[in-house]
């Protein structure tokens, strides 16, 4: 049994006490003396030429401090993109400018045109209504295929077309893949859409700019998953503020899901305006603004072809995808359909030949970027749906077809440039079968039939690449940032520890899980350890939290720093006990000398480090604080097998999830309860995508699903009780904790399970239905059943 509070213990999340009792400190809880308020005047048309923005009348309105337009941002950089993709011809992607406030054109509903800073929010809104605008509406480009047609209206006049890039991967495989598909005994083809989603974290975005004239220091409080990244991008590329004069703080953040990774115009605006008006400047998004300004997710249209031999062995895989970028390139947008998607197309299977083509397209819609899973859910969905379809076409059991093609030997080099270090896909499938009682399905199906319901069973596997890094690799792939992580372990004089991490917790439970690692390493109580994060002035330069990377990369950095601390502490202990450093052991918070009964407590050693009266000052500096930067050798590769049972109401098309089982392999686990919660949340969002959520624009670019009245978020009663297991553990071989990450797995693995189950239910009932595009709303399922 793990020690309470140590690695492996289901310690309750300490941060929940403040979250659940209203004591959290979210960005919107921060109010600075004399602050002014910002209201953004946003475009209500999807595409238009800004002929005139006249703020003269508005400036005279009560309470108005200043009104900003693009004229105020001349000489200021655009919002940068953090990843440059090179196309299949060796050319860089097309990268249009993304101004802080619209320059000459508006390109999506919600594009900010002007910003009013006023004494009160209502005064700012009043003044925004008094701004006179003359906009010539232009044809909107919404559909991706239409956007690529010759002569289509262009989202950006200065670009050659709406094509951001045409990416082929692995380009050299293209001909061999085509050959294999042409000559295969069987080819299964599927066309599908991975619909656009809105992340909708519970906390909408907030930014507060503050400027200190005395020190020339800028402070930005923002709802970010990675404050150092915001400081770097905004300081270096947008506003030209050196980092020592720019302080970015992300306090408690109420959910991110990817959409709070990106650097947003509102952050740059508030930082800029605070100096310009010499007042703190606060902006808090309304939910309506969130729908039209938060980076959105997914939005791929794909054709996938799987070639098999007569026995069901996978021979080749080819995909053609159109990926929506929206109107501008958000921070990591270009990487999502390419390096976070194409590299995952091998899945859990030894398909020898793979070719992925992705055309990224500009449209007059809100920018699209990473959302929980980011490219990997799109990859898994295509692959696991086409395998299910192939099994039906070949009359094979879908599990057996998968098993026949599983990768079973590790490490495994895929044909799409990644090397899986460990995994055991048969083990998770065996566990799933044990959990999900497939033998009892027929009886359950009959019971459902007696109620007039169609029952179906869907199964799928997934693999993901987490712990995004290593930096030298991602640099070659176009990343304009490193992807290491940092930690400082500061031991206080009496032995308690403060860990400053570059990871950022916005729901993941770092404040509980990270101390468990330190507690186990040293043998002290976890409550002797606190985690500090989210403040560029307090933590070393870190890359933040996304891509299920915190424990794998940030946790590893913390382990490396703690190892340095322990190494130094052993030297001090050796001095105190007049022993050889090599004989010192640390266990349960006690240093001992091997083979003797000598011991000295952790706290005595730490005190000696800061009160160095009896201390080897000639050999060792006082103090006990170490920093480490950890750059991983590889991604981590969590995997799993999921099963979903559904009932379809044939009269209405409504799908009810009856059960959901998940057998995951996350390698070693720090806090099983937190892992359960992460998987639960991921599956909840995956079921949301499968059944409910859909971000839809009409042909004019108006957002039809612009509020919770039309954008269906999953509610508790849409979701089943989950049965999750993570006892199959093949530890990661290249990080010190052997961990893989668990944050996105549920969202990646669950949509295909749900759709496979619904298609299964309908096919068992005699409907010739091979696919329904998500969300599988009652109307869509019913419509499919009508033929």
């Amino acid at each position, binding site marked *: 049994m793990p020690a309470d509070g140590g690695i492996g213990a289901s310690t309750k999340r300490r941060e929940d006490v403040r979250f659940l009792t209203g004591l959290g400190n979210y960005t919107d809880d921060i109010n600075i003396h004399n602050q002014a308020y910002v209201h953004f005047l946003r475009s209500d048309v999807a595409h238009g030429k800004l002929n005139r923005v006249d703020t003269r009348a508005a400036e005279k309105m009560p309470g108005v401090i200043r009104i900003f337009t693009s004229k105020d941002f001349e000489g200021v950089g655009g919002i940068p993109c953090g990843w440059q993709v090179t196309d299949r011809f060796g050319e860089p992607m097309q990268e249009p400018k993304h101004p802080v406030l619209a320059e000459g054109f508006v390109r999506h509903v919600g594009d900010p045109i002007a910003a009013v800073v006023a004494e009160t929010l*209502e005064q700012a*809104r*009043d003044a925004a*209504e008094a701004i006179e605008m003359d906009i010539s509406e232009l044809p909107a480009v919404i559909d991706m295929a239409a956007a690529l047609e010759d002569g289509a209206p262009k989202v950006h006049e200065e670009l050659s077309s709406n094509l951001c890039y045409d990416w082929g991967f692995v380009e050299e495989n293209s001909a061999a893949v085509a050959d294999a598909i042409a000559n295969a005994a069987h080819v299964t083809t599927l066309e599908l859409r991975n619909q656009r989603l809105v992340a909708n974290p519970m906390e909408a975005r907030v930014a507060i700019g503050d400027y200190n004239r005395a020190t020339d220091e800028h402070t930005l409080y923002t709802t970010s998953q990675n404050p150092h990244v915001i400081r770097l991008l905004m300081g270096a590329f947008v506003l030209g503020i050196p980092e020592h004069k720019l302080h970015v703080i992300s306090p408690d953040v109420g959910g991110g899901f990817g959409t709070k990774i990106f650097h947003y115009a509102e952050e740059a605006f508030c930082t800029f305006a605070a100096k310009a008006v010499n007042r703190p400047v606060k902006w808090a998004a309304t939910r*309506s603004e969130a729908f039209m300004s938060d980076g959105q997710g997914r939005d791929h249209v794909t054709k996938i072809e799987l070639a098999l031999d007569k026995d069901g062995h996978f021979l080749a895989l080819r995909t053609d995808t159109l990926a929506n970028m929206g109107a501008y390139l958000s921070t990591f947008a270009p990487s999502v359909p390419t390096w976070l998607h194409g590299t995952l197309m091998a899945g859990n299977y030894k398909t020898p030949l793979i070719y992925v083509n992705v055309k990224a397209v500009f449209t007059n819609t809100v920018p699209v970027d990473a959302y929980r899973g980011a490219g990997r859910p799109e990859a898994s969905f295509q692959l696991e749906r086409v395998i299910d379809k192939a099994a039906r076409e070949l009359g094979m059991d879908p599990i057996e077809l998968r098993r026949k093609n599983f990768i079973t030997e590790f490490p495994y080099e895929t044909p799409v440039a990644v090397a899986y270090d460990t995994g055991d896909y048969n083990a998770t499938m065996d566990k799933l079968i044990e959990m999900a009682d497939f033998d009892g399905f027929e009886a359950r199906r009959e019971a459902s039939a007696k109620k007039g319901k169609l029952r179906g069973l869907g199964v799928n596997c997934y693999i993901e690449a987490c712990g995004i890094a290593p930096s030298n690799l991602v640099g070659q792939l176009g990343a304009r940032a490193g992807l290491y992580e940092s930690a400082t372990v500061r031991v206080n004089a009496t032995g308690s520890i403060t860990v400053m991490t570059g990871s950022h917790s916005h729901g993941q439970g770092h404040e509980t899980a990270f101390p468990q690692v330190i507690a186990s390493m040293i043998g002290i109580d976890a409550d002797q350890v606190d985690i500090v994060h989210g403040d560029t002035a307090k933590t070393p330069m870190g890359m933040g939290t996304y891509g299920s990377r915190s424990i794998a990369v940030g946790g590893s950095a913390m382990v490396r720093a703690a190892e340095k601390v322990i190494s130094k502490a052993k030297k001090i202990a050796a001095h105190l006990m007049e022993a050889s450093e090599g004989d010192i052991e640390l266990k349960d918070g006690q240093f001992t000398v091997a083979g003797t009964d000598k011991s000295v407590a952790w706290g005595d050693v730490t005190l000696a480090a800061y009160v160095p009266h009896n201390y080897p000052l000639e050999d060792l500096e006082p103090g006990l604080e170490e920093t480490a930067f950890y750059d991983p050798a590889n991604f981590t590769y969590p995997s799993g097998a999921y099963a979903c049972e559904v009932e379809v109401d044939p*009269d*209405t*098309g*409504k799908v009810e999830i009856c059960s959901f089982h998940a057998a995951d392999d996350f390698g070693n686990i720090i806090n099983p309860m937190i892992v359960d919660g992460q998987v639960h949340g991921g599956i909840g969002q995956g079921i949301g995508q499968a*059944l*409910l959520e*859909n971000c*839809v624009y009409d042909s004019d670019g108006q957002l*039809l*699903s612009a509020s*919770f*009245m*039309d*954008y*269906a*978020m999953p509610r508790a009663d849409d979701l089943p009780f989950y049965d999750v297991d993570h006892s199959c553990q093949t530890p990661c071989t290249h990080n010190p904790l052997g961990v893989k990450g668990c944050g996105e797995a549920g969202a990646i693995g669950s949509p295909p399970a749900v759709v496979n189950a619904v298609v299964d239910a309908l096919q068992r009932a005699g409907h010739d239905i091979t696919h329904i595009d998500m969300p599988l*709303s*009652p*109307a869509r399922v*019913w*419509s499919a059943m009508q033929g």
Partner: protein
Amino acid sequence: MYELNITRPETLADAVEALGHDEAMALGGGQTLIPTLKQRLANPETLVSLTGIAELSGISRDGDMLIIGGTTTHAEVASGATDYPALAALAGGIGDPAVRNRGTIGGSLANDDPAACYPAAVLASGATIVTNTREIAADDFFEGMFTTALHDGEIITAVRFPIPQKANYQKFDQPASRFALVGVFVAQTADGVRVAVTGASEEGVFRWTDAEAALSADFSPTAVDGLNVSADNLIGDLHGTPEYRAHLVKVMTKRAVAASG
């Protein structure tokens, strides 16, 4: 929200007087009006809150009639309309607990959202809308989406429901809002059966008269098997085509008949 004044009269007479001023609007539970104001889609000078008027709230029985005051909340109807279980169940299915604890029957009817639940109950029950000046039969009250027979400044003081022999409401949720994608209220009285449909029509709540005739002759789910609802003038949106809604009207009608107690 634009700047506005709010007044909270304690008598109906004071409320009527306050609503007589230009740019005054009545505020019931505010479950539609407050979000509308927050989005600056309405700009009244004065809001006249009706919820402080004691005489407008409460549930009482008068012979075969159940009388519900105009400011009675959905939660109060859900727990208090025990003499009319189908109506209580309908009220208990509106929105979520926060909505039910604020939203009022009068507010819902005066707003006449085409996907609201109460209009189906009122129309199927053949209820009477009582205002500060007159009584309006349900058949005359609903005039289309967000449009009723109410005059400016007129206040719904109560709704009088004849208690049917059998009744049931079946709502098929719009997945996002959980308003009715289609809701069907079936009520059987000594005079026959009435079937009212909400959520489906561009023209708001309506009676499915073919089904009423069939069910008056044979009050069983199969009685409507041979009938079809025309998709003409039905709502088509993200959540369903007119054809889907037409289909659901029949499915929900059959379920309501089957569930009628």
